[in-house]
């Protein structure tokens, strides 16, 4: 049952081949039995899941239930959930039970989707390896001595180990696409503003976007249909109709213009990863697409611009965590300043502290123009590269990450080497564009990802382009060794 895709689960539930309670119990049993190895969940929610499944079965029996009714998924522990701890993988929020649901959590509740639990992640989504979690690292199901990627490493490992059929995730600089690449999954980060950020704990508000990790592009399309919405509670949500993302999955790619940026194939890219990406582009040619060499000349500035903008926004967002209203509070503070200082120092991990300090520096008097304002100007140049490129091509294709998953500890001593993990994904967040990663081969028995970047609000096209690749190849059907 755990080999079924979301599309197959939807069909099976409707045909009464199995009930939601049966599917949910099956997954809960697997989590209980196998997650000791992967640590992909921070908080499984078995009692709640079974209650939601029983309610879904009742709705299904009426014959009038929404498409996703009864399908179980996992939520990244960054999305607020009433009655269930939302930790953001931080000691700071180890005791935090949100008094409200994230909009995407409510959207899925309305559809009758069952929540299996809350998945592990890098602390406050700051990391590319899932090593900064207060609840311990997540192991990659493809190689348990390697990282699953981050920050949505728990969501990715859970789906790759068949401990959830799909999971929600969030992406500020690559946090959906890079773990998708490292765990052999499909991962989509929609256009900024497409999915509500309400109730998704903020890291860098101008870059954060929620999305999906799934086994297939078709599953991502089904799930995005219910995740995306216009939300007045999120002032950056975009008022625009949500199309049926499944309706165009089977469109022909004849005449599709693919742009291949030369900057994404330079120094630092593993040659075997490059070979798989080039082979995938050949597959697209065989499907009728034309390939065009393009240039995104400011690519090398995306990591530096990001590491000013993201820390600056995080230092502002995380200032609310002060030990007064919720979250961790130190013992016996001697005065108000001591309460702030010790609560925050005890509650945050090293990487979070580092980014807050960098952000405080970039925003401090005398440095604002040199850092924050400068980075925002460079951000416009990076966006303009894409606007120019999309004059002549429909989608941009390249690698998701420079190399396959690395070993634990390999990059945690040098923050800059970790930051360069996201060199191909960060520009998409800075520009606000949608991006998607699909598996396209194995290097050293570990999966590597093909990244597709679309124009603003071109999620349906990206999913179509990904789905057609998955109709022509079987990389997405490969599972980690030992996973039944």
């Amino acid at each position, binding site marked *: 049952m755990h080999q079924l895709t979301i599309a197959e689960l939807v069909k099976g539930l409707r045909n009464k081949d199995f009930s939601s309670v049966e599917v949910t119990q099956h997954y809960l049993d697997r989590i209980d039995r196998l997650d000791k190895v992967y640590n992909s969940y921070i908080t499984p929610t078995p009692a709640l899941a079974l209650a939601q499944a029983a309610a879904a079965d009742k709705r299904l029996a009426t014959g009038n239930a929404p498409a996703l009714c009864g399908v179980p998924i996992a939520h990244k522990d960054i999305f607020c959930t009433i009655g269930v701890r939302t930790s953001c993988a931080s000691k700071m929020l180890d005791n*935090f039970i949100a008094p409200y649901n994230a909009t995407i959590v409510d959207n899925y509740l309305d559809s009758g989707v069952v929540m299996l639990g809350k998945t592990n992640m890098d602390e406050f989504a700051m990391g590319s390896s899932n090593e900064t979690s207060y609840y311990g690292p997540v192991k990659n199901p493809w190689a348990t001595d390697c990282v699953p990627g981050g920050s949505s490493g728990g969501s990715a490992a859970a789906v790759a180990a068949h401990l959830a059929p799909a999971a929600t995730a969030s992406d500020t600089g690559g946090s959906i696409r890079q773990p998708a690449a490292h765990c052999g999954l499909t991962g989509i980060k929609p256009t900024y503003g497409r999915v509500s950020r309400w109730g998704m704990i903020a890291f860098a508000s101008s870059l954060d976007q929620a999305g999906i990790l799934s086994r297939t592009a078709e599953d991502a399309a089904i799930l995005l249909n219910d995740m995306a919405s216009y939300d007045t509670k999120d002032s950056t949500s975009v008022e625009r109709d949500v199309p049926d993302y499944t309706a165009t999955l089977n469109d022909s790619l004849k005449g599709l213009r693919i742009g291949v940026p030369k900057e994404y194939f330079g120094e630092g890219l593993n040659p075997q990863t490059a070979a798989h990406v080039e082979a995938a582009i050949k597959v697209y040619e065989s499907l009728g697409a034309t390939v065009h060499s393009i240039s995104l000349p400011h690519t090398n500035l995306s990591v*530096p611009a990001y590491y000013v903008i993201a820390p600056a926004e995080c230092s502002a967002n995380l200032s609310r965590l*002060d030990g007064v209203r919720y979250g961790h*509070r130190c013992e016996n503070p001697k005065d108000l300043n001591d309460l702030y200082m010790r609560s*925050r120092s005890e509650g945050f991990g090293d990487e979070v502290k580092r980014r807050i300090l960098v952000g405080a520096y970039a925003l401090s008097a005398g440095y604002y123009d040199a850092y924050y304002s400068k980075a925002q*100007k460079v951000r416009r*140049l990076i966006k303009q590269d894409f606007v120019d490129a999309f004059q002549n091509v429909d989608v941009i294709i390249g690698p998701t990450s420079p190399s396959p998953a690395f070993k634990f500890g390999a990059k945690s001593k040098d923050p800059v080497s970790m930051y360069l993990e996201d060199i191909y994904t960060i520009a998409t967040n800075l*520009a606000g564009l949608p991006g998607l990663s699909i598996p396209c081969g194995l290097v050293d028995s570990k999966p590597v990802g093909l990244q597709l970047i679309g124009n*603003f609000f071109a999620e349906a096209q990206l999913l179509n382009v990904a789905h057609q690749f998955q109709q022509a190849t079987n990389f997405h059907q490969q599972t980690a060794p030992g996973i039944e």
Partner: protein
Amino acid sequence: MAVDRSDIAKLANLARIAISDDAADVVANRISTVLALVDQLQAVNTDGVLPMAHPLDAVQRLRADVVTEPNQRELFQSIAPAVQDGLYLVPQVID
């Protein structure tokens, strides 16, 4: 630009994060590494380029000035570390 121990003390105070004397050099080194990375931005000519705050250059949405949210003080304070009579408790601020 590199930062030293005294910069770290200043930043730590701004960010309300305590950095112990033992850790100050390590933190200064690591932050200097990040600043060296972002210093690449200084070489770019951005004359006449407007800073970009939102990918779609959206402007703040306005709504009618009417109350939309009910008061949920008790619910919100139920997760606070210390409250009394509907107020958040902190160490004494005024003598």
